[in-house]
C-alpha cells in the first residue's frame, strides 16, 4: 500500500521540474514542453485524490485537463510556427519586441 503523500510528493517534484524548465530553458519549444510537464504533475495529484476519496469526478477532471492541454498545445505550436516565420529564431531572448 502506498500512502497518498508519496503520490503528492511525486507530483510536486514533477511540477517543480516543470517550473524550473520554464525558467531556465531558452528554446521556446522546450519551454512549452515544461508546461506540459507541470500539467502532468497536477494530473497525478488529481488521480491520487480521486482514488483516495473514492470520487470519480477527479478522473473526469483529468480528462478535461487533457483536452485543454491538447487544444493549448495545438494553438501554441501554431503560434510558435508563426513566430519562427517572422523572427527566424526559436530563442526567447531574441523575441523581445514588447520589452522596454
Amino acid at each position: 500500500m502506498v500512502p497518498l503523500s508519496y503520490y503528492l510528493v511525486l507530483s510536486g517534484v514533477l511540477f517543480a521540474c516543470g517550473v524550473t524548465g520554464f525558467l531556465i530553458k531558452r528554446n521556446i519549444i522546450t519551454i512549452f514542453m515544461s508546461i506540459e510537464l507541470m500539467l502532468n504533475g497536477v494530473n497525478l495529484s488529481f488521480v491520487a485524490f480521486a482514488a483516495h476519496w473514492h470520487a470519480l469526478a477527479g478522473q473526469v477532471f483529468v480528462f478535461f485537463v487533457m483536452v485543454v492541454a491538447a487544444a493549448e498545445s495545438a494553438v501554441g505550436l501554431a503560434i510558435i510556427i508563426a513566430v519562427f516565420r517572422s523572427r527566424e529564431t526559436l530563442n526567447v531572448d531574441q523575441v523581445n519586441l514588447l520589452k522596454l
Partner: protein
Amino acid sequence: MSVHLILFLAFGAVAVAGAINLLAQTHPINSALSLIAVMAALAGEYLLLGAEFVAAVQVIVYAGAIMVLFVFVIMLLNAGVEERTKGSRVAILFGVPGMLLGSLLVTWVVLRYSGTEAVPAGALPGAPRTIGTLLFHEFLLPFEITSILILVAIMGAVVLASKPPTVAPGAPIRRVD
C-alpha cells in the same frame, strides 16, 4: 515492502529521471523523448491507482497525439541545439537551487502534515463505462463546451500556422507589417 510500493517507486524513478533529463538536454528532440518517458511512467502510476481510463487516454492522447505534434514542429522548424546566453546562465544559477528548494519544501510539507492513510491498489473502478456515465450525465455541459473549445483551437491553429496569402499579379498591393 509490497509489490505496489515497489512498482510505485520504479515508475516514479522513471518519471523523475525523465523530468530531470528534459532539463539537462540541450536539443529539443531529446527533451521531447524524455517527456514521452515521463508520460509513459505516469500512465503506469495511473494504472496503480486503478484509473484505467485515464491511463489509456494518457498514452493515446498525451504520449501519442500531443507529443507527435511536438516532434513534427521540431522537425518542421529544424530546431537545433539551444544556445546559452547570459540570461540563461543566471536562470540556471537561480533556477536549479530554486527547484531543489521547492521540491524539498513540498516533500516536507506533504510528509509532515498528511496522514499515512494508504491508497488501496485498484480500489476505484475507473473503468471507461463508469467514467462515460459520469461524463454524459453529470458533466454533460462541460463536455459539450469542450467540443466548442476544440473546434476553436482547430480553427485557430489553421489560421495561425497557414502561410500569409501571396498577392496575385495585378491585384492591389496590401501592406502587411
